[in-house]
């Protein structure tokens, strides 16, 4: 089936929905979502969304921008960070005015709490900057934006999986998607396409990410020769539930929770004497793995699945119930413990891609170091890389990124589509997608994807994790290349059309394998330690050689690497201590 829209948005999380609110005001817009929109992973974000409102204590956007830059280990583009921090304030008020039920101060304003890496006066100590709605801030953002889309009668295509993008002559002309309910391929001709497909934590074994987070947008574009930026920087959140990876929000530490080793010591005193447990995530994750490697994990056996404790037992009575009810419930459901009485066993969990589809400040996809764009092609949210997160994202800045840059992209698209006519798309636009699906469903017997997915996730977790080295990363790259070869033989077991989730998972597997390869190669060739990319064989940051963004282009079995400069126009890079 063929459709025609002025704007097609792929993905219905925070970035996609915010963009849709802007574009649908003036342009005929369709939102494609692989899930029902309210199931998107924005809804799993817990702790908060930062803005220098100053409702609890003095705060300034400049401080927020600086924290973002320093938190990102100076790989952040600094003017972009300033825009993020400045636009944040109105973005929060807009969300509140649209109905978001923020938690409140005693005088009825939006309440704010502490979060990792957010400081006053350029590092003088923690600041209350994170606006929140209990510990379901992302859920409330997703709900509020979806509700506004209902109000504005935005057109949704629920449970449509994107397969391909139509690019011709440096112009984006639409996308190809499969309707899960029927198995039918749909061609969406469009003046503009925004990818807002979220993250791809599912390339790792232990992750806080949803099953849907398979990087569909970046993978589709990578296969069309669009470079992906800074893919070596993947955040491991320090506090996932041991073994499961379910996120325990940083807000537990923001409210006073403390990480302890097997001697009961507050070990962050050794690693970040000023911010302690509220140091940025990359530093806390490394501290945990260092403690475990030294035999100070709770079991003390130095094994990779040993863990540390997140202690919230000393918090004032009622804090957990009132401000962190979901966390309390997760602990009771999955661990059988009450965090009021028992510390939570935690380990780092694969959480967030700092890298992704390179964009400018309006969400336009930028394909080289000269700033060349593809007309009509946009990206926003976790799948994009502006870059406001650099080498390590600060907590709460992901939700902020969605609303600030989702909105900016939506506004730009609204103007852009007025200036052009509908594109003529080739009659065989869906041919590549059809060939792929035909091959997976041709009736031949081949290996099933389940084992391959598990192999990918294990090798990525073990070798492209919190700490990395040449040998491990080379092994991971080789393994992924081998899996990509073997993918040529995989076949479905399910030959039905309606809700063929077997086929869906094989499509997702291909996306993940491509992104795993790009992540692995980008990591292997960055010979320094910066932010979340921490190498045992190159332990120091090397600004002379590596203060630059990676641009990784998929070429068949290989990945070509190029680099582009970082915007350091406001603050000179300095050693990073907290």
């Amino acid at each position, binding site marked *: 089936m063929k459709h025609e829209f002025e704007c097609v948005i792929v993905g219905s999380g925070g970035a996609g929905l915010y963009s849709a609110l802007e574009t649908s005001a003036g342009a005929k817009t369709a939102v494609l979502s692989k*899930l*029902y929109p*309210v*199931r*998107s*992973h924005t*809804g*799993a974000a817990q702790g908060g969304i930062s803005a220098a*409102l100053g409702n609890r204590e003095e705060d300034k956007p400049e401080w927020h921008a600086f924290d973002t830059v320093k938190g990102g280990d100076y790989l952040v583009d600094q003017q972009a960070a300033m825009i993020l921090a400045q636009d944040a304030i109105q973005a*929060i*008020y807009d969300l*509140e*005015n*649209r*109905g978001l*039920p*923020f*938690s*409140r*101060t*005693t*005088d*009825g*304003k*939006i309440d704010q709490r502490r979060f990792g890496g957010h400081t006053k006066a350029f590092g003088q100590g923690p600041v209350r900057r994170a606006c929140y*709605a*209990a510990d*379901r801030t992302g*859920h*409330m953002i997703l*709900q509020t934006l979806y*509700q*506004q889309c*209902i*109000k504005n009668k935005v057109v949704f295509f629920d449970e449509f999986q994107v397969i391909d993008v139509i690019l011709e002559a440096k112009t984006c002309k639409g996308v190809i998607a499969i309707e899960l*309910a029927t198995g039918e391929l749909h061609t969406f001709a469009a003046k503009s396409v925004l990818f807002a497909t979220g993250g791809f934590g599912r390339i790792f074994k232990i992750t806080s990410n*949803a*099953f*849907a987070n398979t990087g569909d947008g970046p993978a589709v574009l990578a296969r069309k020769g669009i470079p992906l930026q800074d893919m070596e920087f993947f955040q491991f959140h320090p506090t996932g539930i041991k073994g499961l990876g*379910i996120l325990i929000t940083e807000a537990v530490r923001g409210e006073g929770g403390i990480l302890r080793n097997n001697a009961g010591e507050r070990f962050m005193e050794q690693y970040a004497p000023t911010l302690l447990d509220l140091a940025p995530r990359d530093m806390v994750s490394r501290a945990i793995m260092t403690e475990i490697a030294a035999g100070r994990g709770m079991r003390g056996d130095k094994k990779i699945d040993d863990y540390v404790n997140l202690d919230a037992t000393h918090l004032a009575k009622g804090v957990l119930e009132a401000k962190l009810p*979901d966390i309390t*419930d*997760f602990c009771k*459901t*999955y661990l*059988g413990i009450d965090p009021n009485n028992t510390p939570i066993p935690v380990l780092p969990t694969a959480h967030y891609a700092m890298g992704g589809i390179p964009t400018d400040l309006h969400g336009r996809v930028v394909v080289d170091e000269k700033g060349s764009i593809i007309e009509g092609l946009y990206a926003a949210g976790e799948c994009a890389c502006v870059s406001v997160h650099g080498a390590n994202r600060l907590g709460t800045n992901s939700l902020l990124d969605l609303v600030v840059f989702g909105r900016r992209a939506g506004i730009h698209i609204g103007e852009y589509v007025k200036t052009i006519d509908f594109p003529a798309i080739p009659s065989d636009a869906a041919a590549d997608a059809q060939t792929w699906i035909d091959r997976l469903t041709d009736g031949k017997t081949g290996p*099933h994807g*389940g*084992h391959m*997915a*598990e192999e990918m996730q294990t090798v990525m977790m073990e070798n492209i994790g919190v700490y990395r080295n040449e040998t491990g990363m080379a092994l991971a790259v080789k393994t992924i290349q081998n899996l990509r070869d073997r993918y040529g033989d995989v076949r*479905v*077991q*399910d030959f*039905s059309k*309606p*809700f063929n*989730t*077997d086929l869906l*998972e094989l499509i997702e597997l291909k996306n993940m394998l491509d992104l795993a390869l790009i992540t692995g190669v980008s990591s292997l060739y960055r010979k320094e330690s910066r932010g979340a990319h921490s190498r045992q064989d190159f332990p120091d940051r090397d600004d002379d050689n590596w203060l630059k963004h990676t641009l990784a282009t998929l070429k068949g079995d290989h990945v070509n690497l190029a680099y582009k400069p970082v915007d350091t126009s406001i603050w000179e890079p300095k050693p990073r201590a907290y």
Partner: protein
Amino acid sequence: MKIILKIERFNPETDTESRFQEYTVEVAPTDRLLDALITIKQFQDGTLGFRKSCAHGVCGSDAMRINGKDRLACKTLVKEVADADGDVVEIKPLRHLPVQRDLIVDQTVFFDKYKSIQPFLINDEPVPAKERIQSQEERMKFDDTTNCILCASCYSACPIFDKNKNFLGPAALSQGYRFIADSRDKGFENRLPELDRPDGVWACQNHFKCTEACPRWIKITKRINQTKKMIQNHRKRKGESINDGTTD
């Protein structure tokens, strides 16, 4: 331990009616039931159809009937539904919604009913320069209802649908309350025609099955009763009668 999942299956391409299929699967008592389903799909039978996403009870994808109760598969541990080797766990799709494939139901009607109560803040007053002021006490009046993940467990659990498929249902009604109880919202009269009718709040007969099923601890039945009270008070103030379908 090894348990048996007895799963109700239906493929519209090949089946005229549903059938049960049994799978034996190795699990730990602390595994999620969703983990068991994934193990089957990944390593035994790729044709099994079910929805999943967040896997920790916040996205609402995997609501289904497990041993006769409407629950999220990712928030149900094996040990809650099976004690020993060989125990059978029966899994069926949600009720009151058309089955599309195996455990996947069509939620269009469910979402249409949700949309019908205008689930968005209605307030045409000029937008303030900053936030609208709301006390924490005012906010807490509807706090639990903002937990809703629209998983449709309550919709499946509600016995009213057995006789009246046009009932708006627990989720839509509790989300109606979420807005009319919000001190910032001015849309009570906009929503009144949808809420105050025989298929609206008045169809609820306080079975409390929705409240029992809700994986997000929403006091759904109570919120529906509070909505009834708000409508009664509003009509009384205006000297009107409520529209519950009965005739005086």
